[in-house]
């Protein structure tokens, strides 16, 4: 067990304790505040999912919002069917007389929960196979995923009778599991989301520090060398795309439960780039840092957009440019560098050369 792994495990435990006990206490167990925070936690999962593909493997996926949206819609479809007797209301407005075939299985909760993970995962896998078998890398990954996202959002908005179009899916029922109705403003629901985040982060931490994660980092540093060592780079990349997509779908399902609607806005280009911002601000190399980044930026957004209603996006833009220019490793990078300085001061050994940190670990993965 490496020291980095121990460090991240400690961070994970602290994170779990804070969101389980600290946050509800600070929020005074207020249902509304906790619901808002649960929203940030759901977004933390998708930010952390991006860290797996972008920070760890070096694949900038600008289509993360598409897989997030798939999860979100899968859950919303189930809840919509439960809320409506017979045909969902928007379908009859659009002259759809019969429930479309692909809606039928969403009557079952078990199917929905599986679909919310497996549909994004298989789509992510297909895109992965499609791209990585041809050794598409670098900027082109970003462009293909972006084009896919735009096409997918257009499709969802266009098929109004099947998906609710621009309005999304609204008027949803509350989810019931073993007879317990999920009230999104209750403590129980908050703990459900907090538990999901902790489990997702634990999976992320384990993956990054397993041998699998080591190979992923090797691919980020130099895909060709990793290939020459006998690893099938395309399969590793595809697998990490699948996992990242499944986590994003999971986050999407939780998001629908928190907000009680699903909207195509959350499949848009700006939402996808917002995920990239959270991840970059927190620190793309560490899944916990990325999740933390999502929570911090969204909390700031919640607080600051009340004060500066107009100027908030301007502030966000400035912060983002500054982070990219001066803190390429995000808050995580600052912490790591700070800790290293402390350690060298503590040792106080003059002449002892500190091993320089690679400040730009992600730039080696260029297309050749």
């Amino acid at each position, binding site marked *: 067990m490496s020291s980095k792994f121990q460090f991240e495990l400690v961070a994970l435990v602290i994170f779990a304790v804070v969101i389980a006990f600290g946050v509800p206490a600070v929020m005074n167990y207020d249902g509304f505040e906790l619901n808002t925070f649960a929203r940030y936690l759901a977004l933390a999962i998708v930010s952390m999912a991006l860290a797996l593909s972008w920070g760890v493997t070096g694949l*900038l996926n600008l289509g993360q919002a598409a897989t997030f949206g798939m999860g979100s819609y899968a859950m919303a479809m189930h809840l919509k069917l439960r809320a409506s007797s017979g045909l969902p209301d928007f379908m009859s407005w659009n002259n759809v007389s019969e429930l479309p075939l692909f809606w039928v299985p969403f009557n079952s909760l078990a199917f929905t929960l599986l679909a919310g993970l497996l549909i994004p995962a298989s789509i992510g896998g297909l895109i992965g196979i*499609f*791209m990585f078998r*041809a050794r*598409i890398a*670098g*900027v*082109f990954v*970003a*462009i*293909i995923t*972006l*084009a*896919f996202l*735009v*096409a997918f959002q*257009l*499709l969802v*908005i*266009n098929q109004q009778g099947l998906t609710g179009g621009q309005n999304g899916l609204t008027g949803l029922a509350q989810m019931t599991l073993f007879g317990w109705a999920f009230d999104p403003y209750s403590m129980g629901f908050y703990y459900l989301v907090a538990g999901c985040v902790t489990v997702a982060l634990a999976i992320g931490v384990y993956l990054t520090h397993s041998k699998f994660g080591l190979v992923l980092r090797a691919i980020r540093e130099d895909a060709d060398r990793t290939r020459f060592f006998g690893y099938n780079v395309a399969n590793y990349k595809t697998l990490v795309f699948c996992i990242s997509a499944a986590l994003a779908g999971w986050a999407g399902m939780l998001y629908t439960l928190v907000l009680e609607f699903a909207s195509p806005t959350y499949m848009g*280009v*700006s939402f996808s*780039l917002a995920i*990239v*911002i959270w991840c*970059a601000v927190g620190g793309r190399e560490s899944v916990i840092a990325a999740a933390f980044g999502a929570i911090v930026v969204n909390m700031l957004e919640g607080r600051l957009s009340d004060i500066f209603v*107009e*100027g908030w*996006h*301007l502030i*966000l*833009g*400035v912060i*983002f*440019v500054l982070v*990219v*220019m001066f803190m*390429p490793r995000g808050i995580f990078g600052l912490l790591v560098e700070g800790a290293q300085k402390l350690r060298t001061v503590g040792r106080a050994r003059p002449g002892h050369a500190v091993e320089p940190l690679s400040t*730009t670990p*992600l*730039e080696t993965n*260029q*297309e*050749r």
Partner: protein
Amino acid sequence: MDVIANQLFAGLSMASILLMIALGLAIIYGAMGVINLAHGEFVMLGAYVTWALQTHVGIGILPALPIVFIAVALVGLIVEKAVVQKLYHRPLDTILATWGIGIILQQLVRLGIGAESRFVKGPEILSGNTEIGPLIMSNYRIFVIFFSIAVLFVTWRLMTRTEFGMKLRAVIQNRDISECYGIESKRIFSITFAYGAGLAGIAGALITPLFSTIPTMGTGLVVDAFLVVIVGGLGSLVGSAVAAALIGEATALFSIVINDTLGRIAVLAGIILLIRFRPRGLFPTETRR
């Protein structure tokens, strides 16, 4: 038949606009490998400068073009010096930084001028239509098509027939060796970025009578223009022209066969397939890196 001819013309008109936006992007991307996501906002700035000149100073679109070019090129120069120059060794991060700049520019315009859409009158001389049989073509759109071809020609001359162009091509081929020969690659990059931004500004000025001028107008355009650049082949001017024509016409024709949105989806799918099988585009340029 009438429908197809008219759609072909609409596609050509769309292509000419895409081409002008994409040219700036293609040069910037080809020269420095920077994906400039703020390019759409340069287009937007061009449109707003045109609007300001027309409503406050009373200058029409055509005489305003040089002023717009210089104004937006200056913004581009500032952006390049302040941000992009610091990120040349981190190409993926330029996507993020320029996107951040895009947000800033968009919000500045929204706060300064307002979010409501602005209207700019087209030039008087070019109002009216030219009709050839059933084919009805707006004179202004014809003008834009020819203007974009002229811009392409001028850019091509600049790249191949001037000292600046030679230096730029040298830097694209091999930056380090060019510097050994005394070419200041930093300066070349700054000028190139400013020129690309200026072209975006002109594109913005020319589309003001066709699109509504709002702070978010650039966001949709930049994705399309970027796809043109990728499909055409990195840094290839001819490639960008062909790709613009292809994408414009394909979108127009698909929208007769199916509908507008599905047509666009089909084009996007086609582009994804094309990148997959020809990642270096239709007309890849020979470079050493």
